[in-house]
């Protein structure tokens, strides 16, 4: 039986099989070429309406989704929390039901509460794409990371991937984890003990609180942004001290394999988690991640829209 796609929602890579993840990546490879053509647009979602419902603010993810939707010829509406009736006390489900009543086909949603999209998807006919739910998951970010790794390294079997930084608060880390594990990579989580809980070991990853052993022989390092507001919450003494013990710089980069990829979901804090010269250096694929994000989101929108009845 030939493989096919039949999900109307994309909520978390945890739900998908390795074959389904590969299916999305293969589809994204074709959509990447659309953006390289003179006519950067296909009629795949002509006549479909997509609502970008960002209850939690976002710029880069929203712009990437918006552009992906436009390149698929969908009609789009953007909604932010402060302009929605959530402010007036309407429940989330009522707001979404009102959106759906306008004959919308897809809702791309970001929310600060983990599981919000999962809850919504079970109550609506239209498709739901999770654009980030709290610290839980951000599947299109995970897919663009996987796409970028696969494009550069070919395969995931036995690939050593280190995720470095604030794992505790990161939906990027959790999203990547499931995808990487399902595709056969060896994952190490590294960072200060306050931000990298040992509990992650139970799902089959290595947890490491020492930078050198966390980076040694890694094929890929995915850095997470260190948010200044975490400092005041006491997770680490200062960003300066964080940079000293866990920053990737010209010295610590030597622990990695010479051809290792340096990834970052952005926005970068230059010279905090990542040395400026490395961010712009030959190992960095940070801007390619952004380009691939567009392709991956086009693929996800296309596949999910094809299964909305």
């Amino acid at each position, binding site marked *: 039986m030939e493989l096919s796609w039949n999900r109307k929602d994309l909520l978390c890579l945890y739900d998908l099989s390795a074959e389904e993840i590969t299916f999305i990546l293969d589809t994204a490879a074709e959509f990447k070429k659309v953006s390289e053509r003179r006519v950067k647009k296909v*009629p*795949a979602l002509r006549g479909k309406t997509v609502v970008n419902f960002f209850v939690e603010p976002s710029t880069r993810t929203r712009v990437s989704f918006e552009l992906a939707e436009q390149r698929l010829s969908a009609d789009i509406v953007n909604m932010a929390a402060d302009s929605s009736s959530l402010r007036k006390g309407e429940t989330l489900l009522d707001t979404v039901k009102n959106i759906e009543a306008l004959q919308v086909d897809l809702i791309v949603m970001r929310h600060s509460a983990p599981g919000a999209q999962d809850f919504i998807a079970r109550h609506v006919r239209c498709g739901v794409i999770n654009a980030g739910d709290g610290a839980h998951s951000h599947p299109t970010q995970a897919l663009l990371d996987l796409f970028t790794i696969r494009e550069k390294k070919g395969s995931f079997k036995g690939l050593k991937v280190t995720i470095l930084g604030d794992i505790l608060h990161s939906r990027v880390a959790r999203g990547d984890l499931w995808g990487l594990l399902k595709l056969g990579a060896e994952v190490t989580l590294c960072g200060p003990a306050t931000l990298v809980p040992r509990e992650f070991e139970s799902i089959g990853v290595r947890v490491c609180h020492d930078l050198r052993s966390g980076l040694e022989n890694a094929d890929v390092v995915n850095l997470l942004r260190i948010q200044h507001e975490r400092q005041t919450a006491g997770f680490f003494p200062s960003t300066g001290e964080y940079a000293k013990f866990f920053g990737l710089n010209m010295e610590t980069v030597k622990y990695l394999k010479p051809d290792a990829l340096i990834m970052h979901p952005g926005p970068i804090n230059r010279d905090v988690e990542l040395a400026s010269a490395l961010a712009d250096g030959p190992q960095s694929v940070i801007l390619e991640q952004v380009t691939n994000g567009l392709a991956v989101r086009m693929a996800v929108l296309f596949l999910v829209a094809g299964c909305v009845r």
Partner: protein
Amino acid sequence: MTAIKEIAGAAEVRSAIAGIARAIAADQAVTSGDGEFALVGLYKQGVPLAERIKRELEEHTSLRPVLGELDISMYRDDVGLRSALPLISETRMPFPMENARVILVDDVLSTGRTIRAALDALTDYGRPGLIRLAVLVDRCNPEYPIRADYVGLTCSEDPARKVVVEFAETDGADRIYSAEWRRTFDRRK
């Protein structure tokens, strides 16, 4: 399930392909002019067919067409009407479309909907000088006003059945037959 019904065997398929190549070679608007001369096969079975036509042309004429491959998934007009989505195949258009003389190649011409989508897809790569259509089998039941320029053979199979083309390269032998639509295939009618 009703048995498979043979429409053409290996010898007939071979001579049908040779016939298409002869018709192309005799079409002066296609064989001469500026711009690239290309055969663009539509996935899935148009791709091996385009290769076969190219081989015929190279054996018997001085024509040297470039090969392209086109998947029209992003241009279909039935998004949301199919039960599940197949994987998109790789589109390759390794020639400048501007002013090109393009022959679209597909195994079966049925309703014309696939070709409608293919025309949209092709013209997104540029402005070809001319587009023609070559098919191995014309089912003679168009729903859109689209006809083929070069036809291997025609058949008037019941539209409720599907016509399948197989090639030696990928399926073991050249043949054309009709069969019931698989029950899993969500054909809307």
